[in-house]
């Protein structure tokens, strides 16, 4: 309220980026689920056993923000009938766009298709 506009610095945290990524990735056609790595799975089980769901989890996603760019890793499960390469590309594209829209960050998205359900 004094002189001019104070400079505002916005920093978006890793968890926020991971959350956006997880939410968007899950809605990509062909993605059946995101797949937690071992550490995330064990943490989730510990939480469940201790009866404390702290925050909604971002299993299967890791994010690291670095200045005005971010690196995101997404691990997905798909189903036979969807082309794995196309699913991976779609996840990369959609997640990067979504994060850029919400945060303005430049994102590099790495995708791993960890499993293909055969049914």
């Amino acid at each position, binding site marked *: 309220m004094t002189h001019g506009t104070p400079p505002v610095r916005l920093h978006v945290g890793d968890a926020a980026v991971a959350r956006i990524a997880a939410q968007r990735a899950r809605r990509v*056609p062909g993605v*059946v*689920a995101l*797949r*937690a*790595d*071992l550490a*995330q*799975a*064990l943490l*989730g*089980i510990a939480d*469940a056993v201790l009866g404390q769901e702290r925050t909604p989890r971002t299993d299967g996603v890791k994010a690291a923000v670095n200045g005005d760019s971010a690196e995101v890793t997404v*691990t997905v*499960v798909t*189903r*036979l*009938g*969807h*082309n*794995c*390469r*196309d699913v*991976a*590309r779609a996840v*990369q*594209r959609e997640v*990067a766009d979504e994060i850029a829209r919400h945060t303005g960050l430049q994102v*590099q*998205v*790495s*995708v*791993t*298709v*960890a*499993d*293909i359900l*055969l*049914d």
Partner: protein
Amino acid sequence: MAVNRLSGSDLHGASEWGSESLACGRDAATAWDRAEVGVTPDEHERGCPHCAAAFADARRLDSVVHRMSNADVEPPPSVMDRVMAAVRTDLRPHDLLALDSPHGPARLSRPAAAAVLRNVVDRMGGVRARSCRIEQLDGRDDADVTITVTARFGVDLASVTARVRQMVLAAGEQALGVPVRRVDIEVVDVFDSSVDGAVDGAGGGKDGRR
């Protein structure tokens, strides 16, 4: 989806290894392509068991690949399932195949890809997949596939291998998105047709020698 007409690479493959003929003398890739495009079988193809089998293979893969699965939700996994899934997901770099993507690193679990190829081969008549190895050279996204199969007692082995090869090429491109550069097929055993379909992988091959 870019339907795999790949005539370029198919032709390339055929010339590289000489043509892969069915027992009737027709080319397996040609029969496959005709089936995929939906051509009505000609007179020969209607009567010939080898061509009919090749047609059936192409249709079967097509029904799998283009069956857009309804967006089922995974059932909530048990604790054990979650741990085992996570352990399996802890993929080391050599367990991963590279997928071609303009948007950054994209990878595919090698065991999952091998399971898909075994699965599509298992759906073919007269063959069962045993093992499947997928190798990628560093920095390339196409792959060499080595697959061992057992064949039903009495089927023509040349036709079977031509069909398996065609199935692997098409499934690599259509289901995985991994172009297949080379397919090595080894028929390791034969099984008795009386147990076909009943018991999977029942390698009860008599000392069948053809």
